[in-house]
């Protein structure tokens, strides 16, 4: 690989802090422009309305240069992809116009199968200089089971979807036949292609303007910069070892799982270790990269929310968890619902650091990303339909103010689907959408309130509810009380859901209630 490696930046390439800042703005512009193009050209509601997608530029070593993420969880779905591409496909054999597609959690560096990544190498004067990469959550692979990853959808290792600009139709057809809503998949993949094409053109333009060596040197300098800021922030936290433990539940599993973390701060570096039970035969497990995204997110919120989301910020952190456990699962564990466990990782980190920097952490949030998925055959068109909605909840109270009500917290931040859009596209009616009174934990500052969303089915369909904090309440901090728990209820006459799964017939009603959040400080 050494001979195919793009020309390394001459370490002597002089680059001043101002050029770095200027090129940093340019990278951010490119990633944002890719993101806007992806959202606007896409078809499926999950991307076009809920913005469940992210875009990024990577250097040729696989480090993130810049990303326009709409959802912090995507940090993890990105970081793994390039090493896996390069492991399978020698860089020497790559050409302009090659586009790789992949989604696998074990062979593709992803975190769950619906997140399909498209990656395109960027060439300048015949040399590979960077990568344009984007990810979109395709709301498909529904109603399949989560005993192991083979049930969860089509596993796609990183392979070429385009070879030198020409579509590899065999690959596309294989993917589409495995999807329930192939028309949406095709259109969303087109939007993903368009986004990367923009990234390639803009990056080539930037290299033409500033010189490739300067652009690459700025990319390296920006990573060093993020690292310096991270180290400066960690160094300001007193050295020591801080631990926290919590419990985790999910509709798919019976009972609760114990989870714990131990954080060691030593100088300007931080070690984080996580303990959890052996991986489960359910879609609640996290791959190591999913764990990393949760850790990077949580530490960034505490240290300095303005640190650039590039690979530099990860350097001062060491993250460990025993392999084969829920928080560091191995093949063939199912991973679709990894987000709930990852949200609990954030709570663990905030809980541990509350001992030393109580004013920079917040009380436990709703701790989840409640999701409800409906799937069926549309009575009007006879076509299969899948509708995924994620529902926010309370956000934890803060040292000086109340928590936010009815928002997405921590690793997720997707929009809801407008009622007037939802009812037009799917045979469902939304009866209520409101804050849950009393769900914000009391305290000097109140925790945020959870949400209630009530759906009526207008035709037969399958339904699946995912979430957590149905058995344990989101804790308060420094004397603040716990927030309300989450749950779901079905209308009389409807067969109760089994581990969150069930069927509905026209007229059935399901109510989903998301947790509130913990309060902060004693009630005065």
């Amino acid at each position, binding site marked *: 690989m050494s001979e195919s490696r793009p020309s390394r930046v001459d370490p002597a390439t002089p680059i*001043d*802090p*101002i*050029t770095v*800042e*200027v090129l940093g*703005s*340019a990278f*951010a*512009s490119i990633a*944002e*422009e890719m993101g806007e*193009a992806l959202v*606007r050209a*896409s*078809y*499926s509601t999950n991307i*076009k*309305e809920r913005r469940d997608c992210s875009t990024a530029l990577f250097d040729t070593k696989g480090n993130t240069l810049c990303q326009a993420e709409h959802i912090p969880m995507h940090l993890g779905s990105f970081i793994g992809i390039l090493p896996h591409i390069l492991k399978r496909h020698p860089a020497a054999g790559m050409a302009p116009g090659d586009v790789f597609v992949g989604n696998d959690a074990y062979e593709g560096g992803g975190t769950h199968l619906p997140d399909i990544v498209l990656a395109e190498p960027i060439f300048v004067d015949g040399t590979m200089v960077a990568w344009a990469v984007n990810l979109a959550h395709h709301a498909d692979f529904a109603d399949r089971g989560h005993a192991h990853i083979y049930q969860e959808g089509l596993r796609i290792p990183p392979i070429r979807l385009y070879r030198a600009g020409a579509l590899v139709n065999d690959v596309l057809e294989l993917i589409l036949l495995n999807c329930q809503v192939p*028309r*949406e998949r095709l*259109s969303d993949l087109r939007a993903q292609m*368009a986004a990367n094409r923009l990234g390639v053109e*803009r990056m080539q333009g930037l290299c033409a303007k500033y010189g490739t060596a300067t652009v690459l040197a700025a990319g390296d300098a920006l990573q060093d*910069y*993020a690292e*310096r*800021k991270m180290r*400066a*922030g960690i160094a300001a936290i007193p050295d020591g070892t801080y631990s926290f433990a919590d419990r985790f539940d999910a509709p798919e599993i019976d009972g609760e799982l114990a989870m714990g973390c131990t954080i060691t701060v030593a100088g300007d570096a931080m070690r984080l270790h996580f303990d959890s039970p052996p991986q489960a035969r359910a879609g609640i497990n996290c791959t190591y990269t999913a764990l990393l995204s949760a850790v990077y997110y949580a530490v*960034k*919120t505490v240290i*300095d*929310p*303005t*640190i650039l989301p590039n690979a530099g910020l990860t350097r001062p952190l060491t993250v460990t968890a025993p392999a084969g456990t829920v928080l560091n699962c191995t093949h063939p564990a199912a991973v679709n619902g990894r987000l709930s466990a990852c949200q609990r990782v954030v709570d663990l980190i905030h809980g541990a650091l509350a001992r030393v920097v109580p004013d920079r952490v917040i009380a436990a949030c709703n701790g989840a990303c409640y999701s409800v998925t409906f799937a069926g055959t549309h009575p009007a068109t006879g076509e299969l339909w899948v509708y995924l909605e994620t*529902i*926010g909840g309370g*956000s934890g109270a*803060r040292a000086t103010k109340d928590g*936010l*009500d*009815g*928002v*997405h917290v921590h690793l997720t*931040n997707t*929009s*809801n689907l*407008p009622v*007037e*859009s939802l*009812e*037009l596209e799917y045979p469902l*009616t939304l*009866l*209520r*959408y*409101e*804050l849950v009174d009393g769900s914000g934990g009391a305290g000097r500052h109140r925790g945020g309130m959870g*949400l209630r969303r009530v759906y009526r089915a207008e035709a037969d369909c399958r339904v699946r509810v995912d979430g957590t904090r149905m058995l344990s309440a989101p804790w308060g901090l420094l004397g603040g009380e716990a927030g309300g728990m989450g749950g779901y209820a079905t209308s009389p006459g409807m067969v109760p859901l089994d581990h969150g799964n069930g069927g509905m017939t026209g007229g059935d009603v399901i109510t989903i209630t998301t947790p509130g959040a913990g309060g902060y400080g004693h009630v005065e």
Partner: protein
Amino acid sequence: MAWRIGVDSGGTFTDVCLFDDATGRIEVWKVPSTPDDPSRGIAGGIAEGIARVGAVPAEVGYFGHGTTVATNALIQHRGAKTGLITTDGFRDLLEIGRQKRPDLYDLQADKPATLVERSMRLEVAERVLHTGAVETPLDIAAVRRAVATLKAAGAQAVAVSFLYGFVRPEHEQAVLRILAEDFPDAFACAGHEVAPEFREYERLSTAVVNAYLGPVMRGYIQLLAQRLADLGIAAAPHLTQSNGGVIGFGAAARLPVRTVLSGPSTGVVGAQAVGRLAGLDNLITFDMGGTSTDVALLANGESRLASEAVVHGYPIKAPMLDIHTVGAGGGSIAYVDSGGLLKVGPRSAGASPGPVCYALGSTEPTVTDANVVLQTLNPHYLLGGRMAVRQDLAQAAIAGLAGRLGMDGMATAQGILAVVTANMAKAIRVISVQRGHDPRDYTLVAFGGAGPLHAARLARELDIARILVPRSPGILCAMGLLLTDLRADFATTRLIPLGAAALPAISEVFDGLAIRAQQWFSEEGIAPDARRATRTVDMRYAGQNYELPVALPDGPVTAASLDTLAEGFATAHQRMYGFVAEGETVQLVTFRVESTGRVRKAAFQPRRERGADASAAVIGTREVWLPEAGGFVACPIYDREKLDAGNRIAGPAIVEQMDATTVILPGMTGRVEPYLNLILEAS
């Protein structure tokens, strides 16, 4: 009836622009604003201005006004106590919004305050389905109870917004009737009137913002109209809207939500008019002030009209010029962050204490300080000599930054400009490349107090070949008011697949809109030959959720119209996203009619060109730091007032005037065109 008056009322100054139709004479008068009651400062400014030019109020034939009253009430949360009546089960929608939190990583960030507190958001039983069918009829008794509750709670305004109110407005109309009967003092408005388009949260938010601003704007307009009448001005007053057009006071009082971008849109209109005079119609406007900068793009002389935007945190569905604002201006503070990089803004030194060089006690260097150190700005005084500055203080402050960066002072000062230029370039990329336009095809129009100072470097960063600096960059907004047409936009949402079967529906929808437009023309008293209406349809592929506007020329809707729409959509989609999805169903979504009432505008007179020699305007030389030339270079200083049409200036050079300083870089030439605009181009 010779004088036309434009008044731009900002936070600090009120600019009055007077134009004599008969002679072409133009006078500008600047007075301090009176934020507690802006109409006082305006009336005073007009009285002084009129006296200064020796006119009498009865001779004023036109009065145009741009105001920040609505936007300030929104920013400072000084709107009316507002109530909401909405569909059972959905009163929290106003607070939930799209359920996103305001910042991904900053856990201390807050959502903008909800404009109607929870106890004032009342639900009534009613439900319309997406088909327009009524599932639950409106509970009239519940409406009366809700109205009584809001009245007792002291509401001054009430917004009404139901699910699918845009499809079937009867329920909202019934509530408005009950409000008129039981609570006539309240300012009332409904979603279907304010924004008859789909997406319930954005429509609700628009209705609420409109109600919240209603009493404030109504009070302001009444006060101002009275003061104008007291002055003896008989001309009907007009107000600019966010769409860049003006509208009568009556209409503005009913729909204040349409005036939230009144201020910045006036600048865009001014730039558009100046560009038209100079024969340029592909423009990027660059309005850089003390704390923020507004940029917009005009293609073929027209700004893209956004049908929706988030203004100060609140989604608003109303036609607005597509203006992008960045929190960086001359007063923005430069600092070195914990990672060792130089950052500029968004914190600003404001007017007080202001930049370090003002010597009012600040020690944090700003963009203005960098310019004073580099001597692109006069190192001794600003505002045409009215204000002394201390270069030594600015140098000391920047030396502090330089020490932390490990760079020398001059490179640091230059670096501040480079960083702020990069921020501006990023903003311009949002309105150009992100919308499918190449900035190299455009002329940069630089105005505002700091625009002309930074335009040359910004243009180089974006490879823009031409810059236009208007003759009075600091008062372009007030001047724009003399050049603005009346304008109102009408829209309705109706989802129809594009195809032959759509023809009757398209005709019907546009006929309905045309009737509303005609009513408006009559209300505003616009003569038939001054009326213009253009039609557009927002279109998408069935399944997409963002639409692209496609123009539909005048005339009967026929099969050929369908082809026009189909081709227009394919072209727009190709440009925006780089592909056309052959065979996919195309959907018509929102139908719009944009009505313009042409007003007679100030007719500026071109001057005859006097020859290239500009030496008569040279008032001195100054050493200016130009890294392109390797350091300080002696640059001639020109007095803008002394430049005449046809004059040429080779860069490097500095052009000073009371309200702005223009930098001409080495390799650029400036020329003064017949309307006294300064055009900078590569030599």
